[in-house]
């Protein structure tokens, strides 16, 4: 019997170095933080009220982004770039496309104060969207600490204390007018 033996020599070099920084799994997907921690439209979005934020929703062509901020007193430092919300039709409305973030400086195990802000993607910041009366919103400030399990667990870097929030806007004049018409109609029928 001939035996063909091929010798493999494979080295796996995991260039890993411990860091003092804190990594954060910037995701509000149920698989990361548990169910129900969503970003929703508030009543200013009319028929979308209470639904999870998505891009290009029916009746609302806007797209939205979320960003993570490190809060230190009155200072808010954005950690990394923005993450897009998912498009209409997604199986996970109210969630943004998750990606890790790093808070450079704070050692693992220290408690951080974080906040998630979301806004209309046509604007460069939440403040700009707010000034333009477009969609914006922010979470309550929540604490985060790498749980430092031993052995480490994926859930150690999840934003478990994040709770969902709503985005709001100043309704378009046409929306206000429609609302006013509806109220007037109700009053008219009540008087009859």
């Amino acid at each position, binding site marked *: 019997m001939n035996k063909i033996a091929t010798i493999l020599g494979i080295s796996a070099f995991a260039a890993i170095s411990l860091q003092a920084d804190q990594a954060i799994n910037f995701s509000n997907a149920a698989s990361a933080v548990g169910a129900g921690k969503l970003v929703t439209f508030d009543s200013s979005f009319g028929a979308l009220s209470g639904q999870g934020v998505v891009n290009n929703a029916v009746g609302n062509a806007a797209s939205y982004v979320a960003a993570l901020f490190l809060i230190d007193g009155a200072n808010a430092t954005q950690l990394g770039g923005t993450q897009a919300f998912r498009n209409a039709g997604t199986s996970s409305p109210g969630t943004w496309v998750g990606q890790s973030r790093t808070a450079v400086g704070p050692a693992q195990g220290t408690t951080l104060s974080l906040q998630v802000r979301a806004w209309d993607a046509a604007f460069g910041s939440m403040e700009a969207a707010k000034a333009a009366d477009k969609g914006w919103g922010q979470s309550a400030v929540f604490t985060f600490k790498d749980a430092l399990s031993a052995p480490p667990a*994926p859930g150690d870097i999840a934003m478990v204390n994040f709770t969902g929030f709503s985005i709001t806007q100043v309704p378009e004049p046409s929306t206000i007018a429609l609302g006013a018409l509806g109220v007037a109609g109700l009053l008219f029928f009540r008087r009859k």
Partner: protein
Amino acid sequence: MALSASAATSSNIVGYVKVNLTSGFNLVANQLDNGAGNKVVDLFKAPLPEGFTVFKFNGTSYASISFVDNAWEGDDLNMTAAPGEGVFVRNTGGASAVTFVGEVKTGSSTVNLTGGNKFNIVSSVIPQQVKLDDAGFPATEGDSVFRFTGSSYASDSFVDNAWEGDSGGVAPTVKVGEAFFVRNAGADSAWTRNFVVN
């Protein structure tokens, strides 16, 4: 007894994989069958630093064995680290390496993935650096993959039929000797690979 002169050929691949270990935790995989049950006590040989510990995840918690006073002790001295599995190694010494020796599994091999949002530590059965979707990984909606970076995790999720996350919108790539977490959001499933030597 008559001997046949016809060519009866079997093919296999034997070799070694050297996996570097940093000081501290490492999530590693032995991807070669050592032919003797792939017991951790056989794969990680002395000399080892005092307190060197191997943790194996059972779906909810870890069993561990440690190298203390020049001998293994702990929960399960028959603990395995077979191709397709993964273990956490806590290296209490300085940077070093472990060399796994054995045979690459050929034919069809299956890695079970417990569903219901349960975590699994798995590895590619074949010792190759590979993107998971090129390796036939059975991603389902809501699945997440977590790769240990030495101090934290890089994560990717399969949402709306596409990968998203730290790999930049493509399936994560796993390295030789690397194990990783899978959180299977679907039903129990199996990652099957069929490797044939030509």
